[in-house]
């Protein structure tokens, strides 16, 4: 089996699993919806106030929802034995991990970005801000999942893995959060978000280059 067919098989399997198990995509979306609707109860319903916090709340909500999907990257595979097959495959492990993360990023990123403009309406944000926010969620989800794949690989079926993954990954997502939210803010204030978008893309590319290798090393450590 060539590298190409191996990675595309992993990619397609991941997408199929995502499509067939409703809870995989429905739960993160429900979580995202509920987080976003909690804040108005806490801060009040004046639209001026909501507009100010809305961008941050939606962005953090999307990151947390993506975080919750991290354990599914390797945990179930470790339980049913398919992770062993991935590890013993002659193809480079980093490429297989990249294919998995790419499939999950695509599926989850599109799903979360698709509902983002709807939630933006909750917070009285204008359409162009909502669009920019959705674009940034789409770019932030792959970065988060790539960085998170390292932690998920280290903590395959570890006790307390989910909470520890959050502790390890969330501080590392701060740059993405800063520039993602700031791009939407720039649009809100009528300025150009080009610099922020370029930096977002840079973070994504950097993560794309380094994280699969680190995650492969991590997976070898934890399943040793």
């Amino acid at each position: 089996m060539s590298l190409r067919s191996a990675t595309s098989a992993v990619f397609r399997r991941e997408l199929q699993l995502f499509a067939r198990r409703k809870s995989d995509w429905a739960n993160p979306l429900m979580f995202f919806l509920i987080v976003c609707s909690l804040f108005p109860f806490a801060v009040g319903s004046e639209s001026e106030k909501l507009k100010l916090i809305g961008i941050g709340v939606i962005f953090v909500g999307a990151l947390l929802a993506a975080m919750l999907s991290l354990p599914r990257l390797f945990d179930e595979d470790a339980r049913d034995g398919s992770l062993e097959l991935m590890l013993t495959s002659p193809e480079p492990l980093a490429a297989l991990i990249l294919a998995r993360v790419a499939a999950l990023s695509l599926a989850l990123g599109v799903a979360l970005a698709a509902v983002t403009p709807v939630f933006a309406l909750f917070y009285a944000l204008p359409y162009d801000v909502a669009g920019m926010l959705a674009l940034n969620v789409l770019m932030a989800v792959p970065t988060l999942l790539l960085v998170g794949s390292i932690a998920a690989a280290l903590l395959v079926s570890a006790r307390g893995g989910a909470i520890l993954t959050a502790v390890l990954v969330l501080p590392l997502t701060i740059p993405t959060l800063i520039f993602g939210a700031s791009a939407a803010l720039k649009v809100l204030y009528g300025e150009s978000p080009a610099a922020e978008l370029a930096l977002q893309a840079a973070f994504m590319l950097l993560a794309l280059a380094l994280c699969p290798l680190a995650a492969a090393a991590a997976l070898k450590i934890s399943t040793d």
Partner: protein
Amino acid sequence: MARTESQSHDKFAGRWFWRYASPAAFFPLAGKLEKLCWVIAAVLTAVGLYIGFFVAPTDAQQGEVYRVIFIHVPAAWMAMVIYLAMAFWSGTGLVLGTRLSFMMSHALAPTGAMMAVVALVTGSLWGRPTWGTYWVWDARLTSTLILFFLYVGYMALAASFDDKKKGDRASALIALVGAINVPIIYFSVKWWNTLHQGSSVRPGSSSMAATMLTAMMVMTFAFWAYAIAAALHRLRTQVIEREREASWLKEAIK
């Protein structure tokens, strides 16, 4: 023949510095270094605090309260330096497979986390009279807070493995990932908010009296000595814990 055999027994034989990669060889040396560093730390702290509190002049704008920098600035520097040292030993351990390197980086982590906390607490105590609030989301305080999170993550990960060897390598990997991210986080946060009072406490800048700078540098060296002593102490404790079955240890701590 005999030579190759002894080499295979000790893969780091031959050079004197490799010899200390072995816990058995380093344990007694670490004990001596630790004592030396405790003495240096105590002397330098006494000298530094004396200069800082009694010799250095009162600041024209901030009054006496500025004297917290003699603790605050060295602690903030050490929090950063120790993270780099931790990442260095983690990388060494991953590349060379030396157990002692992993133990060294575990030994450094709590001291680094403590330095970050000291920097944050003294920073907010300083902030109250000068900025009028305990906490502002300025770039340097915020990145020290994030550094503290990275230390906590490292320690929590190392503790979550029953298998010590696995925990060593897993936490070493996360230390390296963190080290790559530290500059990215630092510059992102700096870009995000630059409220801090700029370069007024930068060493060598003209706004600082010479005695203030002396006190700060002496305190910095005191903190270095303290950090090394504390890390070596923790290292020796770990060696005792992990090598408790080894016969050389019974000789060494007799």
